[in-house]
Every structure is written in C-alpha cells, then in structure tokens.
C-alpha cells in the first residue's frame, strides 16, 4: 500500500490534503480521484450550483504531483454526447 495525497484545485484556491489515503497502486489512486471528482460535481449539481473544483492533484508523500486529474477528464466521458449513439 502506498499513501497518496489529493490536493484539490478550486477556481480561486488550493486545498492541501494533509492526511492522504492508502491505495494499492497509482492506478487505484487515479480511480479514487476520478470518483471523488464525480462526487464533488454531483454535490454541486444537486442544487444547480457552479462546480468550483477543476482538478485533483495526486501527489506522493514528498509532495511531488504525479498527475493532475481534471474535472473534465472525470465528468466529460459520462455525458450523453460521449456515449455510443442511441437510436
């Protein structure tokens, strides 16, 4: 298990994750960031509020950014335009 940190980039600020969370692999941490972004978007959309978070930066314990997972990357594939055509 490896500890990864999810810093959250908002439109106007950066929230530093001081706790981190353990994942079996970077791939799992990446999927965790995708799920988190979807949940954050869903929470804002519940009340038709603007989505303020635009990315989660997955970092290692030294603070190096391994990947910046964007809201677009998480949410866009779920939109109907991106699905197979429905007749």
């Amino acid at each position: 298990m490896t500890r990864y940190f999810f810093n959250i980039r908002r439109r106007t600020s950066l929230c530093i994750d001081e706790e981190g969370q353990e994942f079996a692999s970077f791939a799992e941490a990446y999927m965790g960031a995708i799920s988190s972004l979807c949940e954050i978007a869903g929470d804002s959309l519940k009340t038709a509020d603007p989505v303020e978070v635009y990315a989660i930066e997955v970092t290692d314990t030294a603070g190096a950014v391994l990947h910046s997972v964007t809201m677009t990357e998480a949410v866009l594939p779920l939109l109907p335009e991106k699905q197979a055509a429905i007749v």
Partner: protein
Amino acid sequence: MENGTLAAMHADDLALLQPHFERVELKLKHILFEADAPIEHVHFFLGGLSSEIATLDGKGQLEIGCVGREGFSGHSVLLGVEASPHFAFMQASGSALRIRSDILLSATDTSKRLRMLLLRFIHVLMVQIASSAVSDARFTVRQRLARWLLMCQDRIGDELPLTHEFLALMLGVRRSGVTEMIHVLEGENLIRAVRALITVKDRQGLIDVAAGCYGLPESEYRRLINPNLQSLGTTPRRTAS
C-alpha cells in the same frame, strides 16, 4: 458534569437506577456494542461523543445517530430488542454511567414515568435519524458538514479532534469532499482547521450555512427532555478567534 436525561429524571426513578450505575471511562474508538451481539449495558454519557453506525451488506457505512451527555446509547434495549444490526462506538472519549440492560429494563417495568422519559429520548433520537436522512437526500456536503460540526460542538465543545477520513465516514462521502468543504468553511472564517483538529469560531455562521438541516432534534430534546442542558442547540455562542 451531568447527563441531561438523568438530570431530567424524577428523584424516585433516579434512586431506582443509582445503585446499579458503574462509572466508566470510554476511550476513543471504544465499542459500546457490536452489530448483532447482545447489548450488555446502556451508557448514560457524562461527556464524549458516541456514534451509531449502520452498514448494509458489508458495503458502505454511515453514521445514523450521535449521542453525548444529553442521553444514552443502546436504545434498542428499551424497545425490547437484545441486539441490533447497528454498532456504536466512541468518536470522542468521555466518561459515562453504565447500567446493565436487564436491570434498566426491569426498572422501566417498575416505573412508567421512567419508561416514558426514556422513550421520549428515543423519539428525539428517531427525529435525529430522520433529520440525517433528509439532510443526506436534500442538502449539500457543505450544509451537512456544518450541521455535523454543530452537533459535535453541542456535545464536546469548540475543539473537535476529527480527521477528514472520519468526517467522510460520518457524512457518507469521499474524503476529498470533506477536504474541500473544510477549506471552504475555513475560508469563510467559520472554523479553524489544523491537521485533525477543527475549532469552531463562529457558531451562528455555521447555523446559517446549515440552512435548516440543523436544529430540529435539538429543539425536540429541549421540548421533551430537558430545556436546560447547556448548549444543546441553545444559545448561539461566538468564541474569540
């Protein structure tokens, strides 16, 4: 230190229970009762904070109720049930007076007045559980976090030793949702957050953020159990920043 339900109890009823109370110190994460195991004791808290947790099919856990010095744990006992599919543990340490479940149950056979008081508290708890359900369905993470911080402040004071991971379990969301909203509430100057310690700075501000998802179980408690228990959703307090 006192317990709000015991403080509201008739002296004769209290005298029935008093010889059977045992004072215990409950550490953080102490299990009050396990799922599907007999609930041996009912705890009347003098401090700290307990959480009752529901799990479904081993997937996902969610806090459904929290009780501190206003009441007691193990209410299923008084509903005639030995064991519950839920479990309960201490999320902040504190002391309690505990009593064996069978002794408490027979005392409620002796005194209808005692039984009615304890059942009224169970009603308040049910209102709290319903209020959590409504909050989860209709309110945002920001509003629910504000509600939950207020419920903690009512029971353990302004300094809340809570990790984001723990808050995520309480609110039924992923940790990042908590990290973001703690940051937002801190930016609004309502709380101060240092690693695993959240300090409430502006109670009224949090009540405003909660936008109505906080307060109903607290007012039911004051109406039905004890109007005097200090700070259980009563006077808005502002602490020095």
